[in-house]
């Protein structure tokens, strides 16, 4: 008689059990911190949650509408590269209004950091609040009653806010 080719049922069940245990530990057990760190590092999960706090239409020219939105980093991690200076911020963040791309002009720190050395970098530390100022061309974002703003930052962080038009 030929022997049946394959691994034994015991080995298969042991392997499946092991995988289930590892997954369970990664999700709810002591491996949670590890999986969080790994997934954040790989960019699979955003390192922090952003909270859009408010905003509005700041002004209007013949060709553009100017907006501001206040955003707080709820943590747990810093967003962005603390080794870069704040001139890099506009290129690291993307803003869309009603689905159309807009231009990040400036970001003011509204909740100042307790450590002044962290004030001028391109990173948003936990509990720091930024005011994003951005400009949208009227050709793609015409004046409206409602503006749905989506802000995307480094490492997959994002915030959404709806501005009521005037």
């Amino acid at each position: 008689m030929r022997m049946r080719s394959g691994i034994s049922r015991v080995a298969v069940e042991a392997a499946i059990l092991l995988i289930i245990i590892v997954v369970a530990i990664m999700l709810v057990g002591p491996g949670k911190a590890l999986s969080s760190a790994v997934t954040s590092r790989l960019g699979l999960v955003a390192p922090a949650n952003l909270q859009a706090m408010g905003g509005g239409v700041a002004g209007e020219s013949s060709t553009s509408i100017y907006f501001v939105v206040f955003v707080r980093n709820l943590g747990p991690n810093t967003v962005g590269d603390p080794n870069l200076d704040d001139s890099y911020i506009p290129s690291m963040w993307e803003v869309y209004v009603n689905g159309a791309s807009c231009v990040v002009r400036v970001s003011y720190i509204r909740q100042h950091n307790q450590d002044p050395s962290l004030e001028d970098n391109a990173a948003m530390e936990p509990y720091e609040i930024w005011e994003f100022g951005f400009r949208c061309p009227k050709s793609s974002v015409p004046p409206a009653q409602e503006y749905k703003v989506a802000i995307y930052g480094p490492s997959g962080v994002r915030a959404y806010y709806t501005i009521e038009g005037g």
Partner: protein
Amino acid sequence: MTGRRCGLTRVVAETLVLVIAVMIILLIIGPLNSYVSSAISGSVITASPSDIEILSLYLADSPCTSGVCIELAVKNNGPLSLRNADRWGSWVLIIDDYYCGEPDYVDVGGDDTLDVGEVAKLRWSDNQCTRYAGSYTSSIYAIRDRSYVVKVFGPEGTFTAYTYFPG
């Protein structure tokens, strides 16, 4: 020997392992990500842990730069205590979508926790709220003779809103 080896074939075993691996990958980076990402990320705050409520709001009757210009009483309705309630950046006030900043005085009972049922007293010594936007910078003064939509952001991502009417 005539005894057959007991177990699954290699093909079946490998198929099972492959299916499990694909499921894990889908859970982590695929369309089911949003359902499990909060569990994976652990300490990421995805929803407010507690409800807070504005009990009262005092506004000065004119532009004000000292003393008590704005005073708020905010209650934690639970279900959880809020840590870091006296920490830098924990409380922020926004009125009519203008940024009024954090309070100059916070009273959460002498500790750093706002327990369930406890009321935080917050005071601002300035009532000018601003939007910085270069040449479009503008501001308002939160004074008592006008209506406002008041938003308070608290510790651990908590949030509440309140409509203020004069009188």
